[in-house]
């Protein structure tokens, strides 16, 4: 803006007011000069303008949000609220982890440099992950960022997993990060629809209606989601809604049936089954979520790389996948689980890692197939033709399109991981320190629950496993219908 512009502006104003005298004009000119000096040159105006624009934008967003929340049906409303709530929960878990666990380890660290560095990395990863989660919450309201959700979500999961794996030496503490991961995952499912929904504000509602209705019209998908949310909430609230700690022993009441004191009875240590169940549920869900998402993430990375690069890289990767694929999974898993160098200590995360080693080829092959067919599509060609870099094509075109399939696979994978954890625990290769549903079943078996009639030891964990896997299966089926329209009932 120049001097003349300002004066002109004032002159324009004049036209609408009474005619002014020359003095006034002079004063105006002086004011304009001053303004130019103090207002424009100092950048104050720029700042205020910027603030103004932002304020306007925020108002606009709030208005849009309002429109959006109340115009779209109530179900989406609940969905949005849940998304934000879960993400906030995830962020607070991460921050909690940083503040109460990772930071103290770093600051109090009397140990080796290794521990120090690990703790520091842990803090960094936690904070980074928290930052991305916050970023996503902001991104919900910022239009340009929406299309990047898949990328952001993947980065997020990677960061949280990194934090989790680094936190392993202090396994009990890093449960926070695990829960953050769990919440995060659920919210991605929610957000997948929410984002489409937000886009619909701009376009028509068709796309959103399509996916979300396909999902929610499916009664099973709805039931699955409800069960899962209930289970996760129970697991997360675990210790605070029970009267006992998981390792509390009520030695006066051993092998008692359900009663007022112990609503699901006790085992041979007087552990309260209900408490142990909630505790186990958490670990089992964590194994499922960590193993499932890690497995599919690895599979996606390899699959997309393989499909995108092609040539001998593709051949080698896929031949290797084939080799892993022909090994029978369960025997291979306990082969790996029994390798002492890998498992000085058996920890549930190790089981997750073994699961990933054994099952990545499944997702890699599927994702590769999808990516290959996408690669042939015109929009990839046109993006390339218009000079997009490989990175851009992969992150902006390939990944978002692979994303729904990925989600389906993650869900299937999680379901399978929970079952495999139970298998390994049953065969005596589980994590003996952390309660898991599989371990509970194995312990029940050790206490001859079926023969002695201690049904409360064996049925709750079995039903819990069933409910968990069932909910994953239902959600997976609903997602399947989105990915594969031919499965839909018309």
């Amino acid at each position, binding site marked *: 803006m120049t001097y003349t512009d300002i004066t002109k502006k004032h002159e324009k104003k004049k036209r609408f007011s009474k005619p002014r005298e020359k003095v006034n004009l002079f004063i105006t000119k002086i004011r304009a000069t001053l303004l130019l000096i103090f207002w424009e040159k100092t950048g104050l105006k720029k700042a205020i303008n910027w603030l103004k624009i932002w304020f306007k934008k925020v108002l606009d967003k709030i208005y849009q949000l309002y429109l959006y929340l109340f115009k779209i049906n109530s179900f989406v409303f609940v969905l949005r609220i849940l998304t934000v709530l879960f993400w906030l929960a995830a962020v607070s878990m991460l921050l909690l982890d940083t503040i109460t666990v990772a930071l103290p380890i770093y600051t109090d660290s009397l140990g080796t440099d290794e521990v120090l560095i690990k703790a520091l990395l842990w803090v960094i990863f936690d904070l980074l992950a928290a930052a991305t989660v916050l970023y996503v919450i902001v991104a919900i309201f910022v239009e340009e960022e929406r299309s990047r959700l898949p990328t952001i979500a993947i980065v997020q999961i990677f960061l949280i997993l990194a934090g989790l794996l680094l936190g392993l030496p202090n396994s009990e503490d890093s449960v926070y990060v695990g829960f953050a991961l769990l919440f995060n995952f659920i919210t991605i499912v929610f957000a997948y629809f929410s984002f489409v929904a937000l886009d619909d504000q701009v376009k028509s509602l068709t796309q959103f209606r399509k996916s979300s209705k396909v999902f929610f019209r499916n009664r099973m998908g709805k039931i699955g989601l409800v069960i899962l949310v209930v289970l996760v909430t129970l697991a997360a609230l675990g210790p605070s809604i029970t009267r006992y700690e998981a390792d509390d022993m009520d030695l006066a009441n051993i092998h008692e049936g359900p009663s007022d004191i112990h609503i699901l009875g006790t085992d041979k240590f007087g552990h309260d089954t209900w408490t142990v169940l909630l505790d186990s549920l958490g670990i089992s869900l964590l194994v499922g979520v960590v193993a499932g998402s890690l497995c599919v993430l690895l599979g996606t990375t390899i699959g997309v790389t393989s499909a995108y690069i092609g040539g001998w890289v593709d051949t080698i990767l896929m031949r290797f996948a084939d080799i892993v694929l022909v*090994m029978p999974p369960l*025997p291979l898993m306990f082969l790996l689980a029994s390798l002492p160098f890998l498992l000085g200590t058996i920890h549930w995360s190790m089981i997750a890692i073994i699961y990933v080693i054994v099952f990545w080829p499944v997702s890699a092959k599927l994702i590769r197939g999808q990516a290959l067919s996408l690669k042939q599509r015109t929009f990839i060609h046109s993006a390339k033709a218009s000079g997009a870099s490989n990175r851009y094509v992969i992150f902006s075109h390939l990944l978002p399109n692979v994303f729904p399939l990925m989600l389906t696979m993650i869900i299937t994978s999680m379901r399978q991981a929970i079952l495999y954890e139970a298998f390994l625990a049953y065969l005596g290769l589980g994590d003996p320190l952390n309660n898991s549903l599989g371990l509970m079943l194995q312990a029940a078996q050790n206490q001859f629950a079926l023969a002695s009639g201690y049904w409360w030891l064996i049925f709750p964990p079995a039903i819990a496993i*069933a409910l968990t896997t069932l909910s994953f299966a239902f959600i997976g089926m609903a997602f399947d219908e989105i990915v594969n329209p031919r499965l839909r009932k018309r």
Partner: protein
Amino acid sequence: MGLWKYILKRLIFALVTYFVAVTLVFFIYHVMQGDPTYIYSGNVHIDEDIPDSTRERWGLDEPLWKQYFIFLRNLLQGDLGYSFFKGKPVMEVIGETLPWTLLLLGSAFIINGILGILLGSLVAWRRGSKVDATFVLTYNVYNAFPLFFVGMLFIALFGYYFYIWDFPIYFPLLGAQNPLSYRFTFIQQVGDVLWHLAMPLTVLVISGVLGWSWFMRGNLINVKTEDYIQTARAKGLSENQILFKHGFRNALLPVITSIGMSVGGLIGGSVLIESVFNYPGTGLLLLNALLENDYNLVQGAFIIIAGLTLLGLLIAEILYGFIDPRVRNA
């Protein structure tokens, strides 16, 4: 001939895969800190020098690559090494258990295949009906429970409580044979083996049949929307003719590819089932060998099991070549 070339290609690929898998297993087992002679060291009354002499005797002092070539040479001669724990060649130990596993797996495999495909076609063709809804629910609920838990329930219910409740029929609890079956006639012996097979097989087969039909159902639903089904309808074919002449074979193609994979899963299931039902198969042997640190036996059992899986895969691929003309020229 495209077909023969295809089969040859598959065969070579299977062999290469097997070779790599075997090599992997060998090295996994030889870089770990385990030493086969450990199995003697838990014993108070054994002389100190024994592990050394054993080590010498079985060439465990040789460098790893040399051991590897010895291993390969022996493998080509069908020799999987020597089980230190059992004091017998690994081949012989596995040979004792393999028939039972083959019996369990083989019958499960055949029943799964036939029943699964039929049931899958039925429910897919009656999509949306009550049969279909029941099927979807049954599939999901049954497979939501861990297999071993179902096995435990079966044992408790059909083996024990049925007896307690004075039911006319209850199933045997242990092993694959009655210890006194030597007194029986041949027919009775066969009956005895089948009677012992019934419960483990049922648990395995229910899950297998449901899984296969689930897969078949999905494929058939996909195929049903293909254009050539429409074409067939326009030709005037009846729904049943369409199903069997056009839908079935196309839906079967992916199912056949998954046969190989399903063998792997089946073996995993059979390990659990063998363990729950005390069934004397190779899976149980592998598990016990792992717990007893009988490394050569573990290696051998795994090589055999992986071989079975690969064989299943190979058969599936060859079958695929026969059914789908497209792969022959691809």
